[in-house]
């Protein structure tokens, strides 16, 4: 049976066909839909959102130690969080197949960087598979589990946004039942104290040599001879782009791209006149091909930054000039916080108090855009609280209004330790936790504060205020961000407080059913409106400036913040 599946859905399907029993993840674009598909389609696989990627990889490893086939799923920067267990896991004995899915984001469609996670495979000395279609995404998930069990190593399945989010035709295969777990003890292979780890290291080095032979014989690595005057080594979606640009060329298509198939590469290089390595981001394969003493071209012409496409590859290899494209100045349309978003009024209020706002990763990062212009730093998950603490300490007490904003999901991910540090080291910064009861930016996933699991089962709902207090913060207040006057008063009080303070801005995301706003659009009385633009300053997509007056479109959900700020009282009523 054939089905249109995204790369992510295909990986989920592959997990089913491979007999995976355990899957864990923290949501992150472009990886999120893998675990969502498992949770909604395949009830036989245990699925869980974990607070962060380190936890995701460690629980999956635990399941593997018990003999269950398992997977941990994350976006590229999530692997940084999971890098600690990742570097030592290959030293340990892998029982049930263990697959790490890393979804990279060339072009930074929804990320803070475009790091090339293929380096992690080489760094951790684990095999890596790179699909170039949805069909391969499914097939390689199955192969990854097989390799993992046969070679007793974690395996990395690396996708990019264009693989994860593209749809293609997939031939479905047979489902595989899950294996029964069994309790075994392998202290010499699982207790990584120096004496044991020293013994395990040579095993990794020997394993990589056997994996090189596997790579040479893998069905996913193959030579497609065409015109021998141009030979292209490529992997992932770049292979498809190159094939589109040069359908008649010869290709060495690599699905298993670490370790590289050295014999196959030598053979291919000897059969073509001009050799190119076409890959997105870093010269990961190109450098290794050159280290074999084989001369080739690649990043001398192909860009290191951003994603590739067929036109870029054609122009680079054919040596032509990119077609001059007339740059049209059209009004940009960046993403923005939704009408009625509870983050908007909170950020506006902080800004009004002339605060420096260390930001974090989430929808509120969009508060960076004009007219709010409210976010001053964003580095990685959980960094904002630490930025604020470091800055406040550098200035000394009371000099500057240093604040941090962080979402609830991001706080559980990696904000807790930062807040503990701030309390422990007698910090003074104000931390605002924007609690919208969901992981909004990635499409509303549950987390430890929502009271339900990924499958909607009832579970604990973390008491945020008590958590913050037990971390040692004495001044904590929960505010309703739609009540702007009261919120501004509380912010002033928090800033005046001698010592660390936390404001929990609590209002559900407007995309959730539990949202507090009416959903009915407000209107502007144009006779009363003075055109002062205070409401425009909120940056709400529902408020336009037409004919020197404010105009509220039917995108409005009636949160009432603009009405509260409107001095002449021109905004009100419902349409």
């Amino acid at each position, binding site marked *: 049976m*054939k089905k*249109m599946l995204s790369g992510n859905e295909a990986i989920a399907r592959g997990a089913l066909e491979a007999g995976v029993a355990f899957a864990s993840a923290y949501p992150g*674009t*472009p990886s999120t839909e893998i675990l969502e598909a498992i949770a909604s389609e395949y009830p036989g696989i245990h699925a869980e959102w974990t607070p962060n990627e380190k936890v995701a990889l460690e629980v999956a490893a635990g399941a593997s130690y018990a003999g269950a086939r398992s997977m941990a799923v994350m976006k590229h920067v999530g692997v940084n969080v999971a890098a600690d267990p990742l570097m030592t896991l290959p030293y340990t004995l892998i029982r049930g197949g263990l697959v790490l899915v890393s979804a990279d984001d060339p072009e930074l*469609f*929804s990320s803070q960087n475009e790091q090339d996670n293929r380096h992690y495979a080489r760094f951790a000395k684990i095999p890596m598979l790179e699909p170039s*279609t949805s069909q391969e995404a499914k097939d390689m998930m199955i192969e990854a589990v097989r390799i993992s069990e046969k070679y007793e190593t974690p395996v990395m399945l690396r996708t990019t*946004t*264009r693989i994860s*989010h*593209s*749809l*293609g*035709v997939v031939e479905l295969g047979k489902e595989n039942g899950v294996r029964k777990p069994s309790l075994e003890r392998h202290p010499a292979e699982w207790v990584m104290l120096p004496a044991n780890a020293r013994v395990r290291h040579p095993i990794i080095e020997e394993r990589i040599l056997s994996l090189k032979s596997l790579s040479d014989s893998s069905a996913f690595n193959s030579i497609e001879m065409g015109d021998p005057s141009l030979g292209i080594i490529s992997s992932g*979606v770049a292979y*498809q*782009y190159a*094939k*589109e*640009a040069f*359908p008649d060329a010869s290709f060495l298509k690599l699905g298993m791209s670490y370790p590289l198939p050295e014999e196959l590469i030598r053979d291919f290089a000897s059969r073509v006149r001009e050799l190119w390595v076409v890959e997105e981001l870093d010269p990961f394969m190109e450098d290794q091909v050159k280290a074999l003493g084989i001369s080739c071209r690649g990043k001398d012409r192909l860009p290191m930054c951003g994603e590739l*496409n*067929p*036109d870029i590859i054609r122009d680079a290899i054919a040596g032509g000039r990119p*077609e001059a*494209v007339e740059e*049209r100045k*059209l*009004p*940009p*349309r*960046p*993403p*923005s*916080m*939704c009408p009625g978003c509870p983050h908007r009024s909170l950020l506006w209020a902080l800004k009004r108090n002339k605060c420096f706002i260390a930001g974090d990763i989430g*929808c509120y990062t*969009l508060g960076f*855009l*004009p*007219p709010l212009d409210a976010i001053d730093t964003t580095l990685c998950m959980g960094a904002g609280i630490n930025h604020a603490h470091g800055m406040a300490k550098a200035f000394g007490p009371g000099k500057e209004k240093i604040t941090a904003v962080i979402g609830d999901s991001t706080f559980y991910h990696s904000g807790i330790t930062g807040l503990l540090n701030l309390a422990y080291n007698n910090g003074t910064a104000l931390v605002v936790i924007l609690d919208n009861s969901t992981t909004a*930016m*990635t*499409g509303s996933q549950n987390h430890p504060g929502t009271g339900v699991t990924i499958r909607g089962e009832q579970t604990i709902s973390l008491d945020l205020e008590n958590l913050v207090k037990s971390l040692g913060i004495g001044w904590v207040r929960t505010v309703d961000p739609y009540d702007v006057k009261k919120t501004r008063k509380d912010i002033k009080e928090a800033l005046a407080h001698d010592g660390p303070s936390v404001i929990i801005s609590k209002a559900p995301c407007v995309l959730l059913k539990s949202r507090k706003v009416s959903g009915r659009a407000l209107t502007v009385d144009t006779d009363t409106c003075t055109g002062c*633009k205070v409401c*425009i300053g909120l*940056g709400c*997509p529902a*408020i*336009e*400036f*037409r004919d020197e007056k404010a105009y509220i479109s039917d995108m409005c959900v009636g949160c009432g913040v603009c009405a509260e700020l409107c001095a002449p009282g021109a905004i009100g009523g419902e349409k």
Partner: protein
Amino acid sequence: MNVMMTGVGGQGIILASDMLSEVMMRSGCDVKKSEIHGMAQRGGSVMSHVRFSERVASPLIPYGKCDILLSFEELEAARYVRYLKKDAVVIINRYRLAPPSVISGQEPYPDVVPIIREKTRNILMVEGSAVAEEMGNARGVNIILLGVLSTFLEPPESVWIDAINTMLKEKIRAVNIEGFKRGRQLNSPVMHNVQGGMS
């Protein structure tokens, strides 16, 4: 054949392009579709590429190779003209959603038709949003526009209806099928002539 759909996050472009992909797969084609989720969901510009033929390599349409552009919003129709081939068919939903710089009064909403006309004269403005409003379901504009698009493609109506029946939950099927049929009637007789020029 290369089809692009453009518009603004939240207009239902992903579902519409999923349906087109499903229909073409059922018609025996190899199909690839590519788009960007994530940040685009927050009111940003959205672009979806759907490619179908005997064998498709790249999930992205090369520049100058797009046969049909279906835009859910007027301005977004002009943003990606570099993908259009000469004489491509461009279907534009008559609907304007002001971007931030227009909202705040910094610049006017641009006139997009002259920009597109440099590449093609086959421009069809359709009242998709008006019909959706009239049907009392503003969110149903995607299925209406898909109906318009379907008249430029080979698969017969029945294949589309089958796909809608499989892909949508029962309680929203009837209204979507009605919307799809309304969309099919929005194509003007003049535009039918361009079909002969496409492969």
